[in-house]
């Protein structure tokens, strides 16, 4: 069954989009990440114009994140305090990122910048996670890594404004989550995603949060970041396709519920390996696109600013 998307100005198969939303929603509930960075490329592959894909996915991510976050909240696996600090950094960072996006677009290199960002970050994060979780599984130490105390480098420990995060069992300077949020915000705006796939590993490896609270806290932050992106995109570019977003979120919210339920049963290390493999898969594909000879070296786009 085909349906016409009024903003994308094309028609798509309803069930393909519903299924895509459901599958990605499941992953997002499972990991607290894995929404935008998989969904956006897949929509572009279906022929949706990239700006519309980015903006509509941001809209869909709000719903999937709310659905997943509430499920985590009921199980008390959301660190709201940590989320608030990350968010403050994230909002500032995404504003910076939007500005940078404009500059890069002006010189015609935004596509290249997006691809390079994806390859660099997906590649390093994926490898890091894969090595880390493989090592953890091989060691089989019998106790979960959740209780392990994060050992920060000296300069981090010396940072002022220390805050106690009860849920995450951490006592650390507020500058750490603020800086992580800022960095993720910039990248999220440039790459046009919620940022969960960068945020989740950053929370685990940089901040040292327990795996159990990472997904819920990440989802909490993504709700606000993607709401911000949806608003900005609607106002400045009119690229949010509400029909596409509704189709995606219909599948996405259901998928996210199942994903969040499943995440309680899956061991942390195995979850991370699956996410790492996914991340590396997307990375390899994008790297290949960057270096392989394109089918056509010429591409076209409509010049903005014309009626």
């Amino acid at each position, binding site marked *: 069954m*085909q349906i016409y998307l009024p903003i994308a100005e094309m028609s798509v198969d309803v069930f393909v989009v519903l299924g895509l939303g459901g599958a990605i929603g499941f992953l997002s509930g499972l990991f607290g990440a894995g929404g935008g960075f998989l969904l956006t490329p897949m929509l572009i592959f279906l022929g949706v114009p990239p700006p519309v894909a980015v903006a509509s996915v941001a809209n869909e991510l709000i719903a999937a994140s709310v659905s997943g976050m*509430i499920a985590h909240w009921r199980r008390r696996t959301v660190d709201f305090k940590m989320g608030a600090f990350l968010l403050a950094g994230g909002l500032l960072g995404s504003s910076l990122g939007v500005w940078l996006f404009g500059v890069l677009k002006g010189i015609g290199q935004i596509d290249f910048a997006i691809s390079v960002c994806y390859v660099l970050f997906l590649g390093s994060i994926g490898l890091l996670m894969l090595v880390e979780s493989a090592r953890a599984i091989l060691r089989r130490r019998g106790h979960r890594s959740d209780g392990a105390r994060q050992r920060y480098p000296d300069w981090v420990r010396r940072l002022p404004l220390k805050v106690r995060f009860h849920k995450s069992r951490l006592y650390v300077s507020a500058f750490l989550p603020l800086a992580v949020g800022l960095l993720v915000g910039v990248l999220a705006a440039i790459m046009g995603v919620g940022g969960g796939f960068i945020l989740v590993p950053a929370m685990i490896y940089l901040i040292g949060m327990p795996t159990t609270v990472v997904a819920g806290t990440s989802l909490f932050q993504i709700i606000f970041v993607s709401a911000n992106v949806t608003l900005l995109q609607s106002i400045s570019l009119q690229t949010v396709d*509400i029909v596409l977003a509704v189709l995606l979120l219909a599948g996405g*919210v259901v998928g996210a519920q199942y994903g969040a339920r499943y995440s309680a049963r899956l061991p942390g290390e195995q979850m991370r390996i699956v996410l790492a493999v996914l991340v590396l898969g997307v990375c390899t594909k994008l790297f290949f696109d960057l*270096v392989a000879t394109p089918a056509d070296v010429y591409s076209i786009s409509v010049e903005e600013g014309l009626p």
Partner: protein
Amino acid sequence: MRRAGACVAMLGALACLGVGSLSLPSARAEPLLVDLSDHLVKITAGFVGTDVLVFGAISGPGDIVVVVKGPAKDLIVRKKSRVAGMWLNRDSLTFVRAPTFYSVAATRPLAEFVPLALLQRQGIGVEHLRLEERGAATEGEVAEFRLGLVRNKQGEGLYAREVAKIAVLAGGLFRADLSFPANVPTGAYTVEVYLIRDGDVASAQTTPLVVSNVGVGADVHFFAHGHAALYGVFAVLLALLAGWAASAAFRRG
């Protein structure tokens, strides 16, 4: 069903035009009479592309060429080059007011009855499409970028690869189906119809055609462009509500 309806419309319209009606012999003297089965292509929720019937009559000998042009936009063509092993956009050229859609139909292969000079003068056929570039570039570069534009547009299905067939019926009647794909750009189109006789344009007529969103799709489009901020707020609230509703439903379930 649609085809049958279109045929009835065609006969009815032809009767109105005076073709075949002996009581109005003066109308028969018009060298070229043309109309479309529909002047509005409606893009509804289930739109998967459509055909519009162009039909008419000619008096005397000659061949027909129909050129369909979509709304003009400034199109940027970018060329990728290899830099340090990676492909990135380097050069670009803008074609000013290039048609976003282009297709041609004819009674016979164009080369058989239209001289090259005429094709070039009228801009008939993608290879003769009149495009004006902005910015400095050599003739060779312009030709390359032009080919790039046409190739990309053909890939999207928005520039026709082949000249469509116009069927000639008895008594100087002709008809052709103009096809529009699902991704057809919205806006004001022109359908130019030429009567070619002895290698020159004996008569020509331009008919407007509008491609537009209708129904819910049109409302959404209007809302998004007319009240952008409100639309954004609405989109955010809708998503928040949907996410909350789903988790509430699952809690009970």
